């Protein structure tokens, strides 16, 4: 019929035309003249959302700042988030959706390590550039894959730093309180390696559940072992209870915490007992506390963009990583391809506003963040005590 043929020919003309347009504009997947599409893979909901969603809020704030000043070589940054609910199965699905359906240029994200590990094969097979923001599993970037980078301290770094600190402070009897879930193990195993490296053994090795109501049993056992230092590998929910109960039984060891309690002042407020953390130092991925004037600019931007949120260390992960990626995109040049990005990122050192040291990637080392900072309470306020570069 005449009308049907007419419709058919119009449609095919349109199809061919659109293919030409698409063909011309999409020199690289996810890149057009106007925008760069970047995907975020990570946990957006549930108890671990701060490692994902909050970090991505920080990243998006950095992207927005870049967009406001004209974007990267005239292209606006568009950020698409997909939830992996901290589960391996979901992560594979989310990665595939970002890569094959959203067709992103690169992936900027990665929260729970097991989820990221599950997504890795797909990302490796499709050669999509990936800058990891919060996953700490070392096997993600070791051995080096040309297009995978991380701006987060490796899990082993905090553990090694903790043991080293204990040794440097002259502690002879060191105990451990650690979570044994997926997150905890990524720090616990290197912790045991670090002990071996220094030729010492923990005098007590206690497990704490992520959601305890009471830790008196743990505190008593460690006290009975006469430990003079306790290394804490726990999230605040557990760490609060542990410190609280050690205080209750009148036991005051030197406590060495990790990033999760890096804001010692906030941690003390959470415990609700002033003075309970006088003897606690914590190592952190971030170089400043959330209310340090040095990061005031970002605090203002984040709290304006996400009203109702309080600026915290998880936003800062995102800000550091965001600054790194923005700079790498800039260096990759106007003719933006995935190869160009990889090359730029593999030879880049960026001094971010929130980390204690620069983010530095080299062709042979994609573990780009290596500087930890120590925090403790000085006269009731959290102060940075030292920075250290961790090696093994």
């Amino acid at each position: 019929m005449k009308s049907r043929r007419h419709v058919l020919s119009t449609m095919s003309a349109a199809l061919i035309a659109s293919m030409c347009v698409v063909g011309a504009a999409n020199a690289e997947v996810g890149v057009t003249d106007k925008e760069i599409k970047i995907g975020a893979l990570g946990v957006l909901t549930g108890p671990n959302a701060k490692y994902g969603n909050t970090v991505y809020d920080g990243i998006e704030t950095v992207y927005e700042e870049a967009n406001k000043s004209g974007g990267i070589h005239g292209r606006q940054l568009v950020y698409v988030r997909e939830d992996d609910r901290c589960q391996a199965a979901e992560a594979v699905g989310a990665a595939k959706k970002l890569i094959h359906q959203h067709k992103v240029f690169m992936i900027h994200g990665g929260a729970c390590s097991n989820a990221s590990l599950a997504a890795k094969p797909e990302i490796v097979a499709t050669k999509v550039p990936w800058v990891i923001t919060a996953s700490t599993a070392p096997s993600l970037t070791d051995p080096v894959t040309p297009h995978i980078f991380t701006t987060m301290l490796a899990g082993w770094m905090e553990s090694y730093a903790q043991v080293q600190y204990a040794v440097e402070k002259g502690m002879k009897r060191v105990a451990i309180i650690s979570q044994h879930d997926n997150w905890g193990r990524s720090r616990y195993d290197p912790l045991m390696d670090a002990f071996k490296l220094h030729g010492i053994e923990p005098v007590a090795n206690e497990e704490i559940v992520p959601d305890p109501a009471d830790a008196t049993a743990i505190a008593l056992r460690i006290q009975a072992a006469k430990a003079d230092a306790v290394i804490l590998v726990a999230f605040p929910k557990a760490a609060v209870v542990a410190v609280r109960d050690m205080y209750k039984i009148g036991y005051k060891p030197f406590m060495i915490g990790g990033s999760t309690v890096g804001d010692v002042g906030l941690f003390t407020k959470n415990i609700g007992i002033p003075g309970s953390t006088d003897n606690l130092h914590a190592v952190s991925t971030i170089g400043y506390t959330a209310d340090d004037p040095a990061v005031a600019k970002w605090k203002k931007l984040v709290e304006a963009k996400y009203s109702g949120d309080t600026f915290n260390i998880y936003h800062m992960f995102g800000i550091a990583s965001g600054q790194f990626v923005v700079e790498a995109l800039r260096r990759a040049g106007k003719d933006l391809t995935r190869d160009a990005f990889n090359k730029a990122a593999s030879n880049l050192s960026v001094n971010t506003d929130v980390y204690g040291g620069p983010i530095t990637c080299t062709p042979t080392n994609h573990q780009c963040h290596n500087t930890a900072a120590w925090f403790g309470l000085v006269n009731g306020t959290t102060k940075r005590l030292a920075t250290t570069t961790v090696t093994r």
Partner: protein
Amino acid sequence: MQALLARRNIVAVGIIVFAILPTFANAYIVFVANLALMYILLSVGLNMLLGYAGQLAFPNAALFGVGAYTSGLLRLEFDLPYWITLPAGAAFATLIGLAIALPALRLRGLYLALATIAFAQAALWVFGHWNSVTYGGAGFRVPPMDFSPLPLDPSTGIYYLSLIIVLVAVPLGWNIVRSRIGRAWVALRESEVAAETLGIDLTLYKAYAYVISGLYAGTAGALFSALLGIVTPESFDLFQVIVHFCMVIVGGIGSLWGGVLGAVILVGLLEVLRTFRDLQEIAFGGLLLFTVLVVPGGAIAMIKRYLPGWNEPLRRIGKKR
């Protein structure tokens, strides 16, 4: 028109769609379809225990996990090929299903529910703490499946393997529920006392229910470990249990084809929920409530009302009040 939408035809169309999917859909869609196939297995198995036999039991996520861990570990530690690890995983899960059946036989109703929830949590604890065997909380990577001499890459290979297994397992299940075993299940679901007076050996048939649903769950688990390439304890937590139950209820409890439908619907739903971002939990809970309040018979009940050819014998679950 109604005859066109008869079950036979819809199922045939479904099979064809699944069979040719990898040729035209992107890798993401194929992955989701593969998950759907796996969940169909789980759902059919669970429906036998829950819907037909009427046992309010929650062990399936744990058995799913046992299947995944067993087949994954065999592949990792001993480098065995898939045609050994898959059946081994399924078999081991079936054994564990039998082991649970023995104490579970004495319990019913809420006691059974609580006992099996406790078992599910205990199993999760074992997965996460038995470091020497299961690698504890960290989980482990499973080397990709090798499908040589067939020219298949791992993901396509797993997809078609899943499809073949489903094409065998679902008709098998259909035969089981229409056989003496299925009728015995319905009898003991409606009234254990009456069933016993009819000479039905309660112990035997309840054990069948646990064992068969364990077989299905274990097979699904083995496929899961191959599909993901990684096995971690959190994949088998209580949320999984809830998802399995949702599939059965949303599809239509006590109906095998309802189970199949429910699996497909729920997998699609979980992907659609992604768009809700922050509000996923609210959406999920709301949907569950909606189904239970508005369409308690599940999707199957709605379909049956309008289309013939979807009837199944012994479908309705007994009313307790």
